[in-house]
């Protein structure tokens, strides 16, 4: 079972509640909202890759997958060599200069242990961030698209026929 945060960028309104929530709970925002001139916006965080390059290159095995499939860093093993940052295609792991080790999103491991949602997902007022088993999330999305297509005839023709999903 792999639980992830799915980003539904069409629902995002760039309010940055996710950033502030992560900062308040974790001390530093590990998710960022990118805004484009046409008002499109996307929240972006660690993808907790299925085949995580950061894990593969870590020379001291400081990175591992937990039961929910999140890639988490063991601060006692990390030596701050930055190999994970080099390997990550998104540049997610950052250097924590005070402690000379790396720092990255752990999908709010502490909150998950208490049965709570990750902070960014808890806050997101538009539900642009959804947390759950990734296949469940994607099946639900597909189901919605199919239902929308099925009922489109009732809504008229052309631009009126489809809902934005």
């Amino acid at each position: 079972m792999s639980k992830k945060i799915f980003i539904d960028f069409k629902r995002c309104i760039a309010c940055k509640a996710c950033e502030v929530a992560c900062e308040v709970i974790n001390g530093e925002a590990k998710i960022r909202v990118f805004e484009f001139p046409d008002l499109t916006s996307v929240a972006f965080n660690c993808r907790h890759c299925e085949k995580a390059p950061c894990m593969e290159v870590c020379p001291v095995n400081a990175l591992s997958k937990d039961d929910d499939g999140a890639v988490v860093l063991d601060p006692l093993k990390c030596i701050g060599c930055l190999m994970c940052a080099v390997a990550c295609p998104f540049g997610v792991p950052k250097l924590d200069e005070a402690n000379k080790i790396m720092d990255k999103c752990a999908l709010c491991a502490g909150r998950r242990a208490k049965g709570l949602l990750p902070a960014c997902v808890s806050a997101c007022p538009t539900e642009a961030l959804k947390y759950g088993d990734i296949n469940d999330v994607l099946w639900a999305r597909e189901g919605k698209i199919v239902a929308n297509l099925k009922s489109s005839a009732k809504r008229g023709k052309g631009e009126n026929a489809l809902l934005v999903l």
Partner: protein
Amino acid sequence: MAEKLVPVVCAWCSVGCRLYIVNDNGYPKKIEFDYDHPGIPNKGKLCPKGVASFQYLRHPDRLRKPLKRAGERGEGKFVEISWEEAIKEIAQKLKEIKEKYGPEALAFLGTERISVEANYVLQKLARALGTNNVEHPGRFCQSTVFFAKQKILGNPFLTNPFEDITKTKAILIWGYNPAATSPVFFGQYVERAVLDNGAKLIVVDPRKTETAKFADIHLQPYPGTDLAVALAMLNVIIKNELYDKDFIAERVEGFEELAKKVEQYTPQWAEKISGVPAELIEKAAITFATAGKGALLQQMGSTQHANGTLLHMALAALIVICGYVGKEGVMSGAIPGAYNAMGVSMMGVDCDMLPGRVSVEDEEEVKRIEEIWGFKIPRKPGLTYFRIIEAINEGKVKALYIVGVNPAKGAPNSAFVREALKKAEFIVVQDVFPNETAQYADIVLPAAAWYEQEGTIMSFERRVQRSFKAADPPGDAKPDWQIIVEVARALGLGEYFNYSSVDDILREINRTVPILAGATPERLKENIEGCIFPCPDEKTETTRLFLDGFMTPDGKAHLIPVDYEPPGEVPDEEYPFWLTNFTLVGQFRTGVRSFRSKSLEKRWPEPFVMINVSDAAKLGIKTGDLVNVETRRGSLTARAEVTPNIREGVIAMPWHWDFNYLTADVLDKYVEMPELKTAACRISKVEG
């Protein structure tokens, strides 16, 4: 670990979101989301302000001790004094001024930022001293829509619960950007309606906002000309007979006069004035009127105009003739922007209203309240907010008691306000931070912030909720209601202010305001979701208004036909641009609290000037250039942001930093609402 979760209501906008403050031995450590109560309006979600809402509580700037002025007014030099001295001095001065000049020389300003109970005792104190000069910033915020809807429908409040908007078929959002000002309301209700349920969204706003991003139709009038658009929409609906004939026959008066009046206001005429293409106005009107169920949401972009009351009379007519009231799946009504705005107006912190929005001239009702209070209430309406400032300038009002308001920055033409404040004989400011207005005060009192005291709050859904004490106030700060009661006792009015807790005050409110009789302290403590007023007893609540009729004497809506009036100031050769302002998602009002929340300040650090791409090209302005924006009242400098998301000819700025001294003090003729949303300006690049 002595951590505990204390349930509170968020202290920014008026959606009424609930959250927990993590209280660690009296210290507000962080927040936790409330996913335990499915009945709360925010369903656990929060916006960035809500998440950061505990951060300003322990800011080093917090007022900790009462202060007395040591230098000139406006210098901001103070010495610390004790509570006893402060209260004694205030009581003495207020007494002196009242004896020397009469009670009319006293004035009080309440605020949306304190509880229902604190506002109640504040206005009661003003009335006990014999004056109706008691106002709150809602005068600069919602008074136009309150007045228009009160007159036409008999009640200005939101008609339906939030849930109903997800069932609607068309949503008309007018001068309002809920995606930035109330993200939780937008995300949980409006966005669901549009994205998941196929509601059509029509947005009226000169800027392309995060809300307009979702719009099917986006009308971009020049600021202050939207009245023309509203009249043209009425014209289209009536000409094409798209109104609800049965509903009008049964429940509406004055339709024929309205139809006659709007005949001349064609979409083509409106295009000339507002710059909105006629076919778009037509399309919007037809889409809205033929939807079957519609919602109209509006905020300061429509209310802060000199023709704001006229606009809202037209918009009320629009809602009524379409029949979008008194049923499920529709919504309209006032949407205030600050967390207890509904509460402050219900408590009669108004120069002509008593608790329960009873007019001071309604003899029968005033007598009933007099019996409960035990003293005589003045019958003459007091001065409105801006007139109070003018009266200080003219020397008619001598003493001003300000709770949680910042007129030195927030009022229109604020430079004049600052000059006026220097002339007052005595000013008390009761606040959490030493704001711009406090620099002019004789006595500054440290108040406990929202999460540091227990109190009741009313959201714009009409939901009455209790918020609990989640942290200890810093230093000697005290809850607002307690300070006001102490002042009242020192004035010798103790017999009328016999309260030992907020519950005592709320019980008196239950007796004074019949429609709040059921919102008892016990009920609010037991039901964390609160209740939606009118609630005449503990078992009831009224989620939908106007189901059987309007709240007018005959139960019908009385339409008021209006003529077009231009905004108070329009661009000319000298000042060729329209200037307007807007709100950022991560800042609040004049920034007294949000500038001191580190997560917000980091992300929304400074003002900027939005200018359209083609206007910028003509003036040689690029994004990041320093520009000077100048009106007839003053000028300010900020960085430019060249963007296609604003219409040509309009300049827009967020107003949190300093903006209102640029605006004219033109007032709405019905409610004296100043024109804060539009002014004529010129813009130039700062060389060097």
